[in-house]
């Protein structure tokens, strides 16, 4: 087990390295490169030269990469081109918001689990049918669009929830924050909810078809016990692995949801940085989000390996 963990961690580190090379390469490949930011005509050439020097853009590329990597390991991602503030500060300001939204979406997404189980238990009947229709529709509709429609509709009719934002200025209390969290988390949870319910449904059905369940029933074990002790425990095992994947989705999706709901997280910062060619920020965010995804998958692998001893990846 320990060897397994160590091996996975080493793999993850190499992965991060590979990702850093890839994103650095893409950054340099950009037409205009990192220096295009300084093409603002209002900035006089002398200042531009000064800024270029200060950002170290005069050195050879591999050297710049090496320096950047070394700094990144110390959590120093350089300074934003826009406001010359340390990138790490800018990220730390916004990261809690994204984490808050992602966690809330993840938790709400777990609703998919009981829904999937319920649908499996009522296979072929109305609840099952309803769920399948809903998941299919849910997959076909862009979630950000749904969120936007809800915002617009509620702005024009009854407003149960605020139209975005994290909390009301001057009223930073827990109930206020929760109230602001409801809509964005509900929309964010859609992805997870769809995946969980479909997966659980098929897992439960598969387990239900297996011999040991039939045996348990034949022995006279009562249905609720059959469900909880035999079926669920086996069906829930793979959930851990899906969670790793859902994390990636959430981080990705944060870009869209945060824009729609005026949520001050790193997703919005990423979009703004993209438009302004703020490469230090983009690089840092790519590394950070990849790190989150890798960490999530790593944890999921380890958890799965621990929970289900039959499976060990090599």
């Amino acid at each position, binding site marked *: 087990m320990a060897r397994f963990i160590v091996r996975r961690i080493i793999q993850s580190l190499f992965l991060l390295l590979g990702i850093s090379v890839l994103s650095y390469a893409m950054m340099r490949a950009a037409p205009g490169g990192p220096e295009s930011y300084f093409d*603002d005509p*209002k900035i006089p050439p002398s200042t531009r030269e000064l800024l270029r020097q200060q950002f170290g853009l005069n050195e050879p590329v591999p050297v710049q990469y090496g320096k950047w990597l070394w700094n990144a390991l110390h959590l120093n991602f350089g300074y934003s081109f826009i406001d*010359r503030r340390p990138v790490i500060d800018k990220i730390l300001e916004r990261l809690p918001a994204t984490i808050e939204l992602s966690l809330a979406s993840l938790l709400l997404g777990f609703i998919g689990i009981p829904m999937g189980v319920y649908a499996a238990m009522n296979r072929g009947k109305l609840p099952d049918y309803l769920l399948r229709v809903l998941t299919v529709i849910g997959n076909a509709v862009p979630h950000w669009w749904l969120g936007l429609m809800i915002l*617009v509709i509620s*702005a024009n009719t009854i407003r149960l929830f605020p139209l975005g934002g994290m909390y009301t*200025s001057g009223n930073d209390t827990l109930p206020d924050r929760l109230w602001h969290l409801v809509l964005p988390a509900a929309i964010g949870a859609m992805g997870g909810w769809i995946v969980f319910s479909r997966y659980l449904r098929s897992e439960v059905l598969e387990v239900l078809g297996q011999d040991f369940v039939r045996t348990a029933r034949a022995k006279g074990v009562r249905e609720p016990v059959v469900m909880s002790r035999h079926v669920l425990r086996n069906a829930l095992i793979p959930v851990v692995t899906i969670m790793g994947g859902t994390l990636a989705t959430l981080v990705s999706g944060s870009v869209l949801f945060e824009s729609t709901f*005026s949520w*001050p997280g790193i997703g919005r910062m990423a979009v703004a940085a993209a438009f302004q060619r703020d490469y230090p920020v983009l690089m840092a965010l790519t590394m950070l989000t990849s790190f989150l995804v890798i960490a999530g998958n790593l944890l999921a692998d380890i958890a799965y390996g621990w929970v289900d001893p039959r499976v060990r990846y090599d």
Partner: protein
Amino acid sequence: MAAAGGQRRLRLLGTLALVVLLGACGAADPRTDPNAERAAQGASTAPTAEAAHTSAHVGGSMTAAAVSDAVSFHPYKVTDSASRAYLSLVYTGGLLSADPFDPSARRPQMAESWSLADDRVTYTFHLRPDLRWSDGYPITSADFKWTFEQARNPDNGYPYLSNLKPIVSYEAPDPLTLVVTLDEPLVVGLDNADAIVPLPKHIWEQYDWNDPSRNPEIMNPTVASGPFKLKEWQRDSHATFVANDLYFKGRPNLDSYTIQIVPNQQIAFQKLRAGEVDRASFEPEYYEQAKRLDNVTVYEWWPASAQWSFLGFNLRRPALQDVKVRRALAHAIDRAPIIERIQFNLAQPTYSAFPPTCWCYNPDVPHYDYDPALARQLLAEAGWTPGPDGVLVKDGQRLKLRILYGPNSSKVRERIGTVAQEEFRKIGAEVELQGLEWAAFLDAASSPPFDWDLVVLGWNSTVDPHWSYQIWSESTIPKLNMGAYVNKRVEELYAQGVHEFDLEKRKQIYQEIQQIISDDEPYIFLTVNEAYVGINNRIGGIEVSPLGIDYNIEKWYVK
């Protein structure tokens, strides 16, 4: 001393008189649209000299929606309008201010009086004795001088350093007096002299001027000179300001003013409508809806520092070097439906290098009105005849035009470009339209190989006509003078204009400039835009002026 001076607000906190529209926004968030620029621009204060305000209305808070967050609170680093808006709340700019109802005239602000010596280059300002920083320290000439010394230091990278070039010396003989000497007598000399927004020397001198990690005041100013102090700033979310009791014009009525960041103007409008924010700018298409709202009043005005839009020609292209071709293309554009349908009547047509709101406006310049038949005729005269597929041909070359616009998020510009594309196509040109995001657009338009024929763009003009010389000057090719227009007579006239102290004679000069430019038609001048903003009815004290509504923000109150 004659009052013909420049538009100080933009000079102090903006470009050397001209801001490429959205370029300022572009630095912060190119997805904003001209309307956000207006709103942010509106938030900058140009306070009047009247100090009294009733105490009956004290209290309450106000929230405004904004599409971009500021970059920082450093007056000598920022170039975007969102930051300037925040800055204007905490720092008072300048010794004098423009009279909101007569923007060419100057009124006392931080200086209670001023005089110009007979040499016409030495300005003496007398500061008000009751100026205080929000921590109680007096604001003195030492603050001004120290700030000037920092700003003019080339190592400090002040983007608009050239603003300070005319200043030869900047002295503070005693705490309440400033003596500024320029290098030559200029009509706009007063504004040149009043170039500094003072920073608190007693706080800032212990910190690094450039590095936010070594100067907390850059991101979190604790000492203010403006109507408000910063209380809280959560990036991309909101910024809350509270009343500054020591503001020299008296404590604002409002207890607090919050700027809330929203992702786009549509949501800003929805929030305004729902009462979640008290103030918002929005796209022209919401204007009618906004006017019908019970809880909101839409304030509109024709800004003295007008925003005008145009199609600019790239005069490097052989086909466009023939003035007949340019005039023909001008005749192909119908401004009326653009104004009616794209800008929802929140604009008026313009045909001249200066907007109708300028005192120097020349109404007699040639108007190239919508006349597609005349357009085709002019093109024929210029040697362009229809080829086999209908596209005009001359000497074997097809009339191919490439129109650029930016940022690609500006719907108004996209639509204007699309309309132009269609209209030019109808008179026989083959037209390609391309939108680019702001940085890419600037790159494509103002650096080689200049592969475009027309750009859809806009300028913010200034109250004083002098500063627009930069658009037409050979020395600013290609950054500001993107189309490479060269006319020595025009440059000569501009040089004369800034030295001409007689108002009538000065007006003649600018009228001649307009005549020449409209004859040459390096731009198809399109429209001048009205400014507007929606404010919840619970806020009172707002009065529109050619300088907007923010000049008296300290007088606003909650009803």
